[in-house]
């Protein structure tokens, strides 16, 4: 079975964790939700640190826990890496000894090579002889990630690894995490409640609330799911993946061809596939990018607008209409070829334009954020 299967039950005095998840074995699955929703408990169950948890944990073809068969491997036998929220380096060991602690105990092959690789991958070659209290917060977390990776885990669990860092340090580490996602084949479960981490890192998004899974799926689908307007950061909004198709050097703009939402594969030869112009911040042709389009930055016209300063007009179909908390506002889900946009407009505007489910219209995008 080529998936991560998590079927877990844990009764606590304060809340119950009850999840049944199928997650892909590729990429980063971000677990998102308010504090107290059971994110950390879920991760600890996967790692076997919550011995009271019952159910089934399967990673690919390896069964780590199946209480119906009486199987539950202790944490030390599960081939995983765990990066805790706060720095968890061993204070009695220097950086090099921290890195080799798990490596020596793993039965993985090519240990020397792997160690060199993770040291290079996380850029910690200069820190090896330091004691752990001579490291900055960002360096500590990089060492902790490298230490976990050195054991060659089949699954990497990260519990808000950036939460204890200030935003400058965070910006230092995010690129390393993106590099891990792009260069390693190790699936990751990544807990966060930070919007920028969700939109930058997530391939799959799991939304948790009160110990249960509220939504799960490819990140762009979950974020544009109108039944669950998920406020990530300032506002609800869609996440769109694509590739840079062309550059307009005179005006410093880049044209992004939108890919199919779920797979991230470009849809070739499909005339309905749209493209979006974004600010060129040193992009290269062919580069994969992620765009975030907030609902408040999208408006609707029935005809393609002429004589407007707005650069991005996408033909679309109104897919659903959702009431907002204030009666004057309406949230629209628009299908633009293979992807979805969300638009927040006034109820009067919807009435004036006669918008209904199925109406063909144009989405005008006032502003696009390049998140990657």
């Amino acid at each position, binding site marked *: 079975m080529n998936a991560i299967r998590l079927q877990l039950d844990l009764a606590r005095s304060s809340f119950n964790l009850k999840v049944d998840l199928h997650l892909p074995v590729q990429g980063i699955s971000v677990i998102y939700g308010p504090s107290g929703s059971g994110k950390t408990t879920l991760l600890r169950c996967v*790692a076997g640190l919550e011995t009271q948890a019952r159910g089934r944990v399967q990673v690919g073809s390896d069964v780590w826990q199946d209480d119906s068969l009486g199987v539950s491997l202790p944490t*030390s036998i599960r081939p995983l890496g765990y990066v805790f929220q706060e720095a968890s380096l*061993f204070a009695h060991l220097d950086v090099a000894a921290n890195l080799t602690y798990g490596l020596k105990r793993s039965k993985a092959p090519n240990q020397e090579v792997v160690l060199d690789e993770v040291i290079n991958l996380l850029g910690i070659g200069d820190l090896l002889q330091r004691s752990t209290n001579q490291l900055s917060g960002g360096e500590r977390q990089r060492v902790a990630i490298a230490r976990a990776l050195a*054991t060659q885990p089949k699954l990497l669990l990260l519990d808000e690894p950036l939460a204890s860092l200030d935003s400058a340090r965070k910006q230092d580490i995010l690129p390393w995490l993106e590099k891990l996602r792009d260069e390693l084949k190790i699936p990751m479960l990544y807990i966060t409640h930070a919007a920028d981490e969700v939109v930058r890192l997530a391939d799959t998004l799991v939304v948790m609330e009160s110990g249960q899974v509220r939504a799960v799926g490819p990140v762009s689908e979950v974020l544009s799911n109108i039944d669950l307007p998920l406020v990530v950061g300032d506002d609800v909004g869609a996440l769109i993946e694509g590739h840079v198709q062309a550059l307009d050097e005179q005006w410093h703009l880049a044209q992004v061809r939108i890919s199919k939402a779920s797979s991230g594969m470009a849809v070739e030869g499909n005339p309905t596939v749209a493209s979006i112009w974004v600010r060129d911040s040193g992009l290269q042709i062919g580069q994969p990018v992620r765009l975030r389009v907030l609902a408040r930055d999208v408006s609707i016209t029935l005809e393609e607008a002429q004589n407007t300063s707005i650069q991005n007009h996408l033909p679309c179909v109104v897919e659903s209409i959702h009431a907002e908390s204030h009666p004057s506002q309406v949230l629209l889900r628009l299908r633009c070829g293979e992807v979805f946009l969300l638009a927040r407009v006034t109820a009067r505007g919807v009435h004036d334009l006669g918008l209904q489910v199925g109406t063909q219209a144009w989405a005008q995008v006032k502003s696009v954020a390049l998140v990657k």
Partner: protein
Amino acid sequence: MHLTSEDLAAILLTLQLASVTTVLLLVLATPIAWWLAHTQSKWRAPIAALVALPLVLPPTVLGFYLLIALGPLGPVGQFTHWAGWGSLAFSFSGLVLGSMIYSLPFAVQPLVNAFEAMGSRPMEVAATLRANKLDAFFTVAIPLAKPGFVMAAMLSFAHTVGEFGVVLMIGGNIPDKTRVVSTQIYGHVEAMEYAQAHGLAGVMLVFSFLVLLVLSWTNRRKAQTVT
């Protein structure tokens, strides 16, 4: 100040007793302290009270019960006779046993504090790095609790050096076997040998002060490395 050869023998025996007691006590106290620091059991409170009992019990009471237990009719005495070791009462081994019980809380409490301060996280981290519990205990928990072990060793040693009541009850003040510094001083005073009592008492005074000084220094250094 001059010390007689008997005084020196008493000092030597005291150091021997304190060293053996300290080493054995650390081995015994470590699992007890680990259990006390981590258990959710309902037995925690009674066991903790039992371990702390020597703190409040008059040493003579402790010594009295030990004497009964170690004597030929006591349960320990019957066992040691059956095993062919003879009686532990009035012997160095008996003194070691008594000292271990007498100093037990001084070894256990610093270790409990150290293990509790460490929390469960380091052991969890070690488990995620493929270390089984025993491995993690020796390679992570013990090194991290080192200040607690230093403290426990120094307190056990010093407290054993200072014991008197238990020694008097079960040791019997036999030269070269059970006569330690404190009972030697008592003997000098009984015999009105105040000059010799002064000498030994002075040695004890200086020793005790130095131990407390070093303890205070190690505590200070520990506090600095944490912050």
